[in-house]
């Protein structure tokens, strides 16, 4: 029996979809059988980031309305050997085309075949959010160090606390080391304390995330980037490993090292 985890944020643009794609891919890299569910009906993106857009034949609304069986709508990611699947959202419907009960039924069915079901929640707190929350066992809350994102995250935690789901775990995304060190934004510890939930991981700002997503390859596939390492650590923590938090300290590269390639 699998576990359904919703990835939510409240505010848009903080990296829910990118995080869903990368955490899902990281779990698949760890040998888990993962299904990603895109709940952003009408404005789907998860398929694009995974590079599976042109493979969509049936979507979640086709399943709900009985035009397709659930297994027909699942798209296999060929980069993994039967480990990673996507259930795409519909593009020409809206979030009210599905309700909580249908969502719960569908996720229950997915749980039989998958170890992890990651639900990519749409921004906002309307029907799409309610649907995503209804079916989840756990929640991951994504935020950036910006105060507006943290404010929305706080609201989301409040809403999730009213449900049967355990308190969400926090992912702080798009951390700019320099700004955080200079105190321009709240630091990791402050954010975690302010929201008073468990910290699951931090992701540093990394141009490679956008570059990789644009090519339809989640950044986590290439281990040589700090963001990739961040997502891999999150996946390991979800699996129960104890992984130390990545260091904030920017390695000071001395001018001599830059010039001569040695020295302190």
């Amino acid at each position, binding site marked *: 029996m699998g576990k359904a985890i919703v990835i939510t944020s409240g505010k848009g643009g903080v990296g829910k979809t990118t995080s869903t794609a990368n955490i899902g891919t990281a779990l698949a890299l760890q040998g888990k059988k993962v299904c990603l569910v895109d709940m952003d009906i009408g404005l789907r993106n998860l398929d694009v980031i995974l590079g599976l857009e*042109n*493979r969509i034949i049936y979507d979640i609304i086709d399943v709900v309305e009985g035009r397709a069986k659930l297994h027909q709508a699942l798209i296999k990611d060929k980069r993994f050997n039967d480990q990673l699947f996507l259930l795409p959202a519909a*593009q020409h419907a809206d979030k009210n085309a599905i309700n909580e009960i249908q969502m719960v039924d569908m996720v229950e069915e997915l749980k039989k075949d998958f170890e992890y079901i990651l639900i990519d929640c749409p921004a906002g707190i309307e029907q799409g959010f309610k649907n995503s929350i209804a079916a989840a066992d756990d929640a991951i809350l994504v935020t950036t160090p910006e105060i507006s994102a943290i404010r929305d995250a706080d609201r989301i935690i409040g809403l999730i606390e009213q449900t049967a789901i355990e308190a969400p775990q926090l992912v702080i995304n798009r951390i700019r080391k320099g700004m955080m060190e200079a105190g321009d934004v709240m630091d990791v510890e402050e954010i975690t304390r302010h929201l008073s939930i468990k910290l699951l991981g931090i992701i540093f700002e990394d141009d490679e995330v956008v570059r990789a997503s644009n090519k339809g390859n989640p950044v986590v596939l290439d281990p040589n980037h700090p963001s990739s390492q961040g997502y891999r650590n999150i996946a390991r923590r979800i699996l129960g490993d104890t992984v130390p938090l990545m260091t904030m300290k920017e390695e000071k590269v001395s001018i001599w090292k830059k010039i001569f390639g040695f020295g302190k």
Partner: protein
Amino acid sequence: MKSAVSLKGTQEGYQLIIQSSASLQDVYEELETLTLQMKKDSHTGRKINFHVKTGQRELTDAEKEKVSAIVEDEYFKVSSFESEVLSLEKCLQWHKEASPTLEVRTVRSGQIVEAEGDMLLIGVVHPGGMVRATGSIYIIGELKGIAHAGVYGKESAVVVANFRYNAQVRIGDNVHVIEKKDQLTDEDSDTTEFVYVNDLHIIEVSSLENLKTIRPEIGKHAGGIYNG
């Protein structure tokens, strides 16, 4: 005076020809006398089918029933009616089916553009956008989304487009995913091809010069409902 109803025997069988200039009242009366006469003359006991030609007059269903009622008995049967008149509705329907729908637009993500019969799209189908036609689809521009031809199962439909980008083509119930490499070479810039369903019900891509061989009926409208 020319009689309102005349009988004609052909190789295919008997025809009842109803003059379109005669009043319906006369037609019914003459039909009755004619049928009576025929029934008197016919002793063979064979079943005879009549084909009714109404010329420049389209009978309503009620009128057709009345004609059948007068003629038909144990041995006589009215097999079919034929007129040289086309109803406006049928005309428009035929026109719709025979002429491609022209769309000049950009089909954006989440939009669906549909057409009855064939569709000619001038523009771009963006990723997530969809064009759907009961017949074939011809695209001048770019296909990056989904083109679904023969929506109601017409597998002889084709999709003609420049397949340079990642896209998806469906014909009837068949689905084909088009994968292109990231970097386009000069060779790719002129790759107008067509997609069709072969005899084994498998989607295939072929170059345009084979279109006429594989689908000779395309671009050749024989004209008229009965030929079409």
